[in-house]
């Protein structure tokens, strides 16, 4: 894919602006809280878009377009079912405890609600996972740019990592959040024209649908039976596995996204952050998935478009870049590639800023040096930023050398994540839940996830203990692993909690439903109140699902 001077100019201009924002923000950073938590001072429209952008990494954008080409509109369930309901839940029900407890991180909330060992378990696994995710994302970007543009892997990785390091090192979380907003607009304006051009080329929505099997342009119609859709999942595992366990586990407990809402200037703003973010989130499938669906239609049109092949078959991961090469001339191609770089940077900066906060407050202050002056923690936060980026780069190279180890690690981390939402649900809504219960439940849930994987098989994956059941796809297997892990954690946490002594109610005020006063913002206009805002989000969500049934 040849680039012209204008493409490089746009990319360079973007680098200049993200660095300038970091430099401008630096003047606002004088304490560790400024650096690591933004001092709870960011306006709500900014936290909302950052909440969304931190999840819009390059792998997400490229992967969703690939899934659109492979599975069709059912991929939109990762947004409409697998994100928006959970975003509504965290805004309405969970944010009052995260923000109201004045915890500086999600693991710190676990310490306040349960105990130190539960926090340490969550903090340590989260810190390793964020670095790992950041490194794998960096590896994917380096490989993609090497494949598509012929750029050197090392140069792509080091240049993008260096820029993220500079602006996060200078301005901390605020700088990352502000840049995420610029990156969000770039992603939308960089990819939306592709969706429009590609659909127009196939003859509009109806023309595109007529060139594809019907299952490719419907989200729910073919979910009755796993054999009727290319994902190989049926409605129960889709709703319970993706729509409940995995979705709520990620959007409600992952500090990477929750941190953006916690940076908001008030409780009301923190609660509205995921609700406002839900509006663009609902629209994102039309920007990142539809080009993939159009790519699948174009293949049947004899217009000179095809997807490259790889050993295992069609290389769907190249759907986005090959479509850009066919529909974007020099100029807009630079915008599209800059958007791809921006999506990588927003994802990486999200990981790095979440890592440095958890490392500084939950691991370093919590276990290594508890009572140091604040300027020391500011220094540690900055050092953790450098260390986090360096370890991410090392992980990217490790992924390049040992791809199988990365797959195994990713699997292990999914086992750890799956039960987490049960711990938070019981912690926030059942005052009888105890620290021993939460800790044992998390370990039991992780074990259940590993056992389910070891006893079932899908697409030659799993079954390392025995094969008791075969799933039609790894996606169905993942959804069921999550369901078993969550259920086990939920039941074990309840059982052990009932056998152990609860915390006194006075220690649970502000942390548990029923012992916390939740403001209802009476007197504010409807769009400034979380409840009515959530109702509007729900109505829009229902309309979308009905229209694209």
């Amino acid at each position, binding site marked *: 894919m040849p680039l012209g001077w*204008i493409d490089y*100019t*746009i990319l360079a*201009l*973007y680098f200049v*602006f993200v660095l*300038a*924002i970091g430099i*401008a*923000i630096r003047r*606002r950073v004088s304490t560790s809280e400024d650096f690591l938590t933004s001092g709870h001072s960011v306006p709500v429209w*900014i936290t909302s878009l950052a909440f969304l952008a931190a999840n819009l990494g390059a792998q997400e954008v490229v992967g969703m377009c690939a899934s659109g080409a492979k599975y069709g509109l059912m991929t939109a369930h990762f947004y409409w079912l697998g994100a928006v309901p959970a975003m509504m839940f965290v805004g309405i029900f969970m944010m009052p405890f995260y923000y109201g407890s004045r915890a500086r991180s999600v693991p710190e909330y676990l310490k306040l609600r349960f105990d130190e060992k539960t926090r340490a378990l969550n903090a340590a696994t989260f810190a390793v996972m964020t670095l790992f995710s950041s490194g794998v994302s960096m590896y994917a970007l380096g490989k993609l740019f090497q494949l598509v543009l012929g750029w050197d892997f090392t140069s792509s990785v080091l240049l993008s990592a260096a820029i993220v390091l500079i602006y996060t090192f200078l301005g901390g979380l605020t700088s990352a959040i*502000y840049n995420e*907003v*610029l990156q969000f*607009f770039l992603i939308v*304006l960089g990819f939306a*024209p592709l969706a429009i*051009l590609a659909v*127009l*080329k196939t003859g509009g929505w109806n023309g595109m649908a007529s060139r594809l099997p019907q299952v490719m342009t419907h989200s729910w119609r073919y979910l009755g039976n796993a054999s009727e859709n290319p994902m190989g999942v049926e409605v129960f595992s889709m709703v319970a596995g993706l729509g409940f366990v995995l979705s709520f586990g990620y959007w409600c407990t992952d500090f990477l996204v929750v941190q953006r809402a916690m940076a908001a200037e008030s409780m009301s703003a923190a609660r509205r952050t995921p609700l406002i973010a839900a509006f663009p989130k609902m629209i994102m499938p039309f920007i990142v998935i539809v080009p993939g669906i159009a790519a699948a239609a*174009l293949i049947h049109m004899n*217009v*000179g*478009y095809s997807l490259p092949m790889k050993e295992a078959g069609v290389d769907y991961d190249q759907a986005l870049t090959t479509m850009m*090469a*066919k*529909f*974007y*001339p*020099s*100029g*807009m*191609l630079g*915008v599209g590639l800059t958007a791809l770089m921006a999506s990588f940077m927003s994802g990486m900066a999200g990981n790095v800023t979440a890592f440095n906060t958890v490392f500084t407050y939950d691991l370093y202050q919590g276990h290594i040096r508890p009572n140091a002056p604040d300027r020391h923690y500011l220094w540690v936060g900055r050092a953790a930023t450098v260390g986090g980026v360096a370890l991410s780069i090392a992980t990217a190279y490790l992924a390049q050398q040992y791809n199988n180890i990365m797959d195994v690690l990713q699997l292990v981390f999914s086992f750890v994540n799956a039960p987490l939402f049960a711990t938070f649900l019981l912690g926030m809504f059942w005052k009888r839940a105890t620290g021993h219960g939460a800790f044992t439940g998390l370990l039991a849930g992780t074990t259940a996830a590993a056992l389910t994987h070891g006893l079932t098989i899908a697409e030659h994956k799993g079954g390392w203990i025995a094969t008791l059941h075969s799933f039609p796809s790894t996606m169905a297997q993942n959804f069921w692993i999550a369901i078993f892990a969550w259920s086990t954690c939920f039941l074990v946490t309840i059982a052990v909690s009932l056998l152990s002594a609860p915390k006194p109610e006075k220690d649970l005020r502000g942390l548990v439903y029923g012992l916390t006063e939740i403001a209802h913002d009476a007197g504010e206009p409807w769009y400034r109140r979380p409840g009515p805002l959530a109702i509007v989000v729900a109505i829009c969500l229902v309309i979308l699902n009905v229209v694209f049934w």
Partner: protein
Amino acid sequence: MSDLRLPIGIFFAIVGLLLFTMPSARAPLTEVPVNAYAGASMLLFGGAMLWLARRKS
């Protein structure tokens, strides 16, 4: 930084103008002048951001 809309507005206004300098560039699968339309959209968006930032200040 007083208002984030200022750098965002400037960025998209510049990118919009740059795209406008190459309206005749064509891509293999479309006859649409992509740069012209996208450039105009970005100019409008950048202008709106700058107007919002100026109105606030």
